[in-house]
């Protein structure tokens, strides 16, 4: 049973004269206990999608969809007040910049207790302290962290605090928005190990937003490839990384030094992102695709089920038959 069902999600940003269509027609079901890596380069709409799901878009952003369900419950057509009741309790989000997500002038405990009070005002200070020390222990932080200020912690420790904050109410779905991007290699590796352990311990479903295929390869079970606001491919991580079907996925994977055959030149993707104010009527990758043909110009390809994954490409049957 899918935990999160998204159907035809569109997210736009209003500008002075026009609108940027950041996410278009995004349809995806995320099953329970899946760890889904959402991969995309800058401007692909991956963070916009996460913010839209949490209803924390900036003021000029708005979301349309035909359906969004969490645990079979409609979360699209409910009021902000109703949404507040399930935010952080059923789904939470962890941001990239822990440094700016935490207040520099309050102790860690006060900030975490604040989050608890915002959702469950009846919890007492002592109860909270007990709960939080246990939680910090789980993410391998000493209990004294509660009495510290953010500047006393290292980047990795701060990100652990943020993750434990996201787990306070044991939510079903956790969105990790580039959580390891700002960290050093070893700290990143250690945190990824931790995330893998927590996912099992808390029986989490995770949406992990990142630009790094290597990170997805380490922790995720599924991967979704986002390009210029559209979902182009979705399936098992290893299948897609080692045998991509969509031309963009293929080009992306070939740009990665690890996956480049030894001795050959690294291929990039020539060209630039399409205009998101007036997105093209054709396949979104048409301009930069090396397999393009005339059929690709006419209309948009559907996201179709193909060999156990979802692919958006007119020529997939022909190229990978």
């Amino acid at each position: 049973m899918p935990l999160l069902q998204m159907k035809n999600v569109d997210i736009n940003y209003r500008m002075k004269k026009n609108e940027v269509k950041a996410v278009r027609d995004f349809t995806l079901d995320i099953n329970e206990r899946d760890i889904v890596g959402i991969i995309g380069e800058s401007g692909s709409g991956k963070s916009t999608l996460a913010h839209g799901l949490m209803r924390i878009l900036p003021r000029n952003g708005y979301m349309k969809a035909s359906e969004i369900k969490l645990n079979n419950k409609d979360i699209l057509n409910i009021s902000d007040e109703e949404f507040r009741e399930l935010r952080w309790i059923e789904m939470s989000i962890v941001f990239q910049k822990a440094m700016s997500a935490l207040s520099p002038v309050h102790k860690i405990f006060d900030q975490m207790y604040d989050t608890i009070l915002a959702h469950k005002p009846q919890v007492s200070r002592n109860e909270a302290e007990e709960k939080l020390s246990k939680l910090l222990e789980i993410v391998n932080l000493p209990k004294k962290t509660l009495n510290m200020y953010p500047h006393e912690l290292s980047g990795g420790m701060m990100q652990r605090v943020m993750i434990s904050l996201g787990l306070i109410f044991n939510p079903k779905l956790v969105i990790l928005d580039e959580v390891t991007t700002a960290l050093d290699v070893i700290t990143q590796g250690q945190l990824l190990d931790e995330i893998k352990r927590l996912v099992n311990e808390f029986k989490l479903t995770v949406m992990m937003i990142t630009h790094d295929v290597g990170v997805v390869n380490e922790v995720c079970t599924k991967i979704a490839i986002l390009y210029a606001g559209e979902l182009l491919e979705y399936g098992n991580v290893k299948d897609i990384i080692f045998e991509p079907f969509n031309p963009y996925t293929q080009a992306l994977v070939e740009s990665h030094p690890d996956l480049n055959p030894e001795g050959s030149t690294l291929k990039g993707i020539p060209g630039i992102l399409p205009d998101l104010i007036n997105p093209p009527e054709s396949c979104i990758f048409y301009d930069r695709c090396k397999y393009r043909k005339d059929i690709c110009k006419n209309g948009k390809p559907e996201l179709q089920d193909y060999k156990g994954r979802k692919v958006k490409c007119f020529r997939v049957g022909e190229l990978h038959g």
Partner: protein
Amino acid sequence: MDKNILEVKNLKKYFPVRKMGKKQYVKAVDDLNFSIREGEIFGVLGESGCGKSTLGRVINRLDFEQSGDITFLNNVISGKSYKSDKNFRKKMQMIFQNPYDSFDPKMLIYKSIELPMKINDVNSDAGSRINEIVETMNKAKLTPAESLLTRYPHELSGGQLQRISIIRSMLLKPKFIIADECVSMLDVSVRAGVLNLLLTFQEELNSAMLFITHDISVATYICNRIMVLYAGKIMEIAESKDILDNPLHPYTRALVSYSPIISKEEKKRFRITGEVVTPIDPPPGCRFASRCPMAKDICKKEEPILKEIGKNRKAACHFV
């Protein structure tokens, strides 16, 4: 490839800090010894705070060493400032991480490229300078060159601007290039183009390069040899393939095992704990001892020297 273009001996760079009224030093770069051959791409790999950028800045005389010798093209350059030495600047060029910071935002692109050529007398005549710029832009597939050149930096994408900043350096035909994290803020698909451009020019001019990065995948793709730094000290120097496939030093082993390198085989972590030691008056012994799973008593007392291990290979560890 046999002649050394750059030799660094006992290079130290300390930054003074005052703590509780006591004068102490951040030992950003501490006693480095290495040399770079002609035409070689030499990678400096390390995490934040390991001193890799400081090293680049000291070599390029943007910062000055505490002590030690740097020999560049058989001239001792340490102890001098080279603030107005055109000849030196022309031979050694630097490419920075953020191209938006390394271009004057109020200057048209072609002016930004032309000015260093004019100052360094690459081409005396303005018309032929422009011709050369356009030609190089076309070669780098930055087209239409004329339209790109008459824009301002904010009108270009990060990848385009970084490629232009490489062109700007390369038009001076430098003998030595220092690239400081020059692709770390770019998307993967753009990164490839920038790296390839760097390689094309480097091959054409046969210049040597100091490539500073934190990304082991990029380092092994582009570099001939890699030097691994940790808290201001050299841990290991080896050919890139050896660093990736057969790291010897415990720190390198940890670094490789924790990197999100994509491969079909499952890899095992070489587990370490703790955080990087503070570079402010660090304890005696090996800098990595407090986190090293192989550490014995000797590691905390005696500092390991960088010793030769096999061909083209050095490591600083008591147990290698």
